[in-house]
């Protein structure tokens, strides 16, 4: 049991990293990685929403959609859950933890349209994870996203001062460095934990 959870965690963080191996959540990865502070804010918000979404979607899928043979409705039902969840979390934070709310700022509503969140809940059902496994996969998937975002933000802060050809200026050099990152993460593929 524990071994399978460790396997899922390492898989989600490194081997099948959401950004670098599965290419999910690329838009926030490019959009908010230009400063370390915004990158960490977005990371925390994503971890939070991914974990909660995994839990709630598992319940809806197992006790509502599967018994009624409505598995084909997963995508639309999950999108509904994620949107409501993000809205709810935003209201809750605004009322009870205003400091965290203002730190996350615009990133919280942005997560609604983050494909990594939808990806994690759909993969949960594809892999037939149980409740605990789903939650762990959601959490560690978020951690993997955070790792990618923080690593890339630190690179982009250095890129500001780097001396590269004029033609690569701006977005081009970011895509090139993201590609190199993805190549590096391919080194983890094929790793297997017993």
């Amino acid at each position, binding site marked *: 049991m524990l071994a399978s959870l460790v396997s899922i965690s390492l898989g989600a963080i490194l081997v099948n990293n959401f950004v670098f191996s599965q290419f999910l959540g690329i838009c926030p990865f490019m959009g908010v990685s230009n400063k370390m502070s915004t990158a960490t804010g977005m990371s925390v918000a994503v971890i939070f929403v991914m974990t909660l979404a995994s839990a709630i979607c598992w319940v*809806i899928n197992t006790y*509502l*959609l599967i018994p*009624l*043979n*409505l598995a084909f*409705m997963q995508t*639309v*039902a999950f999108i*509904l*859950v994620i949107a*409501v969840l993000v*809205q*709810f979390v935003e*209201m*809750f934070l*605004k*009322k*009870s933890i*205003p400091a965290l709310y203002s730190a996350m700022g615009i990133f919280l509503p942005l997560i609604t349209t983050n494909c990594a969140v939808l990806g994690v809940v759909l993969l949960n059902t594809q892999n037939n994870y149980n409740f605990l496994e789903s939650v762990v996969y959601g959490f560690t998937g978020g951690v993997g996203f955070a790792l990618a975002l923080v690593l890339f933000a630190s690179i982009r802060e250095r890129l500001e001062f780097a001396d590269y050809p004029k033609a690569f200026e701006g977005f081009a050099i970011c895509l090139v460095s993201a590609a190199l990152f993805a190549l590096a993460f391919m080194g983890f593929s094929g790793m297997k934990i017993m």
Partner: protein
Amino acid sequence: MTVIWAILILGALGLLFGILLAIAGKVFAVEVDPKEEAVLAACAGANCGACGYPGCAGYAAAVAKGEAPTNACVPGGDEAAKKIAEIMGVSAGAGEKYYAFVRCSGTCGHTKQKFDYEGLDSCIAAARLGGGSGANVCSFGCMGYGDCVAACPFDAMHIVDGIAQVDRSKCVGCMKCAEACPKNLIEKVPATSTDIVACRSTDKGPVVMKYCDKGCIGCQKCVRECPADAISMDGFLAVIDQTKCVNCGHCSDICPRHCIVDIR
């Protein structure tokens, strides 16, 4: 049958979530400071950003927190400052009135052109040519393609006789025009100052003579004759210190180039 279930389940989920959110909206409602709303109503509502905050709402929030002065709403002027001070329960500091002023007098016929400009009708585009001054020989003056006119939210800026002119009856001093001007010619001047040097050329006198009839040549006549010692030289350009100026109007009378203008 499946279709009906699908519709029912999704509808029920939607309804459930909707109700949940509605309840959450009530439970987690955050009270907005009533002062903030009142201040927002008292502002001019132009969202011009002259107060230094992102829009009227941003300013209202800062005022309600006590972080911003009550008289910072430029387009609202004295009236808004009084209202906001009343809401906040402090005495109204007199909000000084400012206008934009274009520091160039090189109207058509008084300046020389290097070439015929046929490009985009925009100062920023023209400023890319001719060494940064478009077709103008003068590298400081107004090119008159009206970027400031487009930027003005109050229709107070017009191109008259080849250069930009400020209509003081409409100008509120938000200085959007100054941000749009690639030559940095537009300055914020207090409504109380009456004599302003309408030239920014720091070129030497003989050089200015060649290209403009109205540019400051640095003859220093005004510096010598000013009764209040308010005028000094920045290179070959006269500069009036508005804090010392006594508004006698003598400099604008004696300026041989008529580039110190009396805007009384």
